[in-house]
């Protein structure tokens, strides 16, 4: 479906319902033979976006030569108007009568088992980097614009000319890392493809015009793929000059429109000047602008860079954390064609496995609702990262868990104030029993740590296999996600006499359960406030994000906690136990009186 936009997604793996708005083409794509007569008579001329504005198109157009379907469409935003009809020339010119200026948009509802997200990437806008003069000098262009100029299907039929005077440039400069690998103006990550794209472009110029002098200004050249080093060597052998240093300024000579580029060559430690006919800015890649909207539609999490986050970087690199959703291409990170095709193949294969199975295995660890306790408050539905819980708050219909969509993080169970949700295999009773066992003997000598399965516990594993030492006083309780750790577990641990309690999970943005650890952080904030109100030092509850690769950090944190433990006095522990026991009894008494009141009201 072309010209289409996803408006709504609901459901879960195996049963997604997707609402798509297909915008009107105003030309029947099945009838159109792409004869082009409508475009010939169209009086509206606008810059051609595909040719980067180097040529023009009509309001009736085919976006690019290989567009599918091979049929014209009308850009109604540019058309002279259909209400009332102001021009109508295309309608008269169309022999097959396939133009309908009143064609409406279509809303299509699809029922699909899996979703593959392959929405591509955007390109960094270099207008903010004023020192390169992109907005001021006509002969400063981007790599995308250069691509159209050198392309046989481009506006110049592949003849390289510079925009100001249509003359073949004899001295061309490429500036690398424009908008990439910078903390200030641009993105901190490497865009992956720019170095090899420039190497390829330099060879293309040398093939067309062997006498052209080409200068590539770079900070590092990254030629790490198969055959890439060979291509770079060929480029150097062809006479392309590689200069290590990013230019500080590009200036223009007014009558000739030639450019002068000043750069500190870091290999010679000298400031050099280069006279060039044309400068190409090797712009980096970015997530598409509407990716945030799509991410919220599909419950996807995004990395700080804005790209979507995969379920596991090594073991499930094309899977979204939400089951049944896969990624292909630059939506996940900047990558070249080969990697995109590889990823697309993997995503298609992963989808086919699910679709051919015909049934989905649900997680053994999942939320189970006790409707007798459920008050239909809706908190569980609000905190579920997967949208796997539905509650009809108005109709007071209790929570329902979509088993296929539940991933088993346990955030709902931890946030439920009425103990109406139990996590299979990680029930409250099971975790409280572990706390009791851990603190049964000499609790004042122990540090109790709640660790998430995927990161912190794995970090502890790494510390172990790396033979890193950490104090023997630590006692670990593994939970699937730090989001599972209920406030009551921590208060109970303190009441049992724990001097220090650690709550540890994945780094924010790395959570195995999309963003469940955001709730962990909020809970820690609340708990620190509560402990302070109760007269307990909030420092005794520690929060640390430890990844599975941070064995050293795990060991350091544990050693730090042991130091803290030694500073907690027996008197302080006794006071804490008394305060928390009183607090728990008063809460229980409150709940009992509330129950009695509601029973009386029912009677």
């Amino acid at each position, binding site marked *: 479906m072309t010209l289409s936009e996803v408006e709504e997604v609901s459901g879960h793996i195996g049963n997604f319902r997707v609402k798509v708005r297909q915008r009107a083409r105003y030309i029947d794509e099945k009838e159109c033979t792409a004869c082009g007569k409508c475009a010939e008579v169209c009086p509206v001329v606008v810059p051609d976006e595909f040719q980067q504005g180097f040529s023009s198109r009509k309001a009736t157009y085919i976006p690019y030569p290989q567009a599918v379907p091979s049929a014209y469409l009308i850009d109604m935003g540019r058309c002279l108007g259909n209400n009332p009809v102001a021009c109508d020339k295309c309608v008269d010119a169309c022999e097959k009568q396939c133009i309908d200026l009143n064609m409406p948009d279509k809303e299509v509802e699809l029922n699909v088992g899996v979703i593959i997200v392959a929405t591509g990437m955007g390109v960094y806008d270099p207008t903010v980097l004023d020192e390169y003069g992109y907005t001021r000098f006509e002969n400063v262009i981007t790599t995308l614009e250069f691509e159209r100029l050198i392309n046989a299907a481009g506006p110049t039929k592949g003849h390289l000319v510079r925009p100001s005077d249509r003359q073949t440039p004899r001295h061309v400069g490429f500036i690398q890392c424009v908008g990439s690998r910078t903390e200030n103006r641009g993105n901190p990550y490497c865009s992956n493809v720019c170095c090899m794209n420039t190497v390829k472009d330099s060879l293309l110029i040398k093939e067309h015009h062997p006498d052209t002098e080409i200068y590539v200004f770079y900070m590092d050249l990254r030629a790490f793929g198969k055959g890439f080093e060979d291509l770079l060597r060929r480029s150097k052998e062809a006479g392309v000059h590689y200069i290590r240093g990013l230019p500080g300024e590009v200036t223009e000579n007014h009558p000739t429109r030639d450019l002068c580029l000043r750069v500190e060559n870091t290999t010679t430690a000298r400031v050099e000047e280069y006279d060039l006919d044309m400068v190409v800015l090797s712009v980096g890649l970015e997530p598409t602008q509407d990716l945030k909207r799509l991410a919220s539609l599909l419950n996807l999490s995004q990395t700080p860079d804005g790209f979507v986050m995969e379920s596991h970087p090594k073991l499930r690199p094309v899977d979204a954390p939400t089951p049944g959703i896969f990624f292909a291409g630059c939506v996940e990170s900047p990558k070249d064609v080969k990697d995109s095709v590889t990823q697309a193949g993997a995503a298609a294969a992963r989808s086919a496995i699910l679709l051919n199975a015909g049934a989905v295995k649900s997680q053994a660890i999942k939320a189970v609702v006790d409707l007798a306790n459920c008050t239909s408050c809706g908190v569980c539905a609000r905190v579920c990262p997967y949208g796997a819980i539905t509650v009809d708050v108005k109709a007071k219909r209790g929570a329902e868990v979509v088993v296929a969509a539940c991933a088993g993080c346990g955030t709902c169970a931890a946030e439920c104030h009425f103990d109406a949700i139990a996590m299979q295999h990680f029930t409250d009773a099971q975790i409280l029993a572990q706390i009791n066992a851990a603190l049964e003997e000499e609790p004042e000598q122990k540090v109790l740590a709640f660790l998430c399965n995927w990161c912190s516990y794995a970090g502890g594993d790494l510390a172990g296999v790396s033979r890193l030492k950490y104090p023997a006083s630590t006692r670990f309780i593994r939970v699937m996600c730090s989001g599972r750790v209920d406030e009551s577990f921590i208060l109970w641990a303190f009441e049992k006499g724990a001097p220090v309690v650690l709550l540890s999970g994945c780094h924010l*943005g790395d959570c195995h359960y999309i*963003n469940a650890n955001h709730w962990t952080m909020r809970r820690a*904030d609340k708990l*620190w406030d509560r402990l302070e109100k109760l007269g307990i030092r*909030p*420092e005794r509850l520690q*929060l*640390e*994000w430890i990844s599975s690769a941070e064995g050293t950090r795990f060991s350091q944190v544990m050693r730090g906690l042991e130091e*803290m433990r030694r500073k907690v006095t027996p008197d302080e522990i006794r006071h804490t136990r008394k305060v928390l026991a009183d607090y728990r009894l008063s809460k229980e008494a409150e709940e009992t009186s509330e129950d009695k009141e509601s029973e009386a009201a029912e009677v």
Partner: protein
Amino acid sequence: MEQKLKCLRCGFEYTVRVEPNKAPRERVCPKCHSNSVRKISSK
């Protein structure tokens, strides 16, 4: 918006700029790199 924070490991207090509508960011003590960093209300 500015937010005052206190590290519950080393006691270091500092201020950061926060954007209310953005996803929460990891709080890391600039002194000891601990994540046990607590928001301090201005009251």
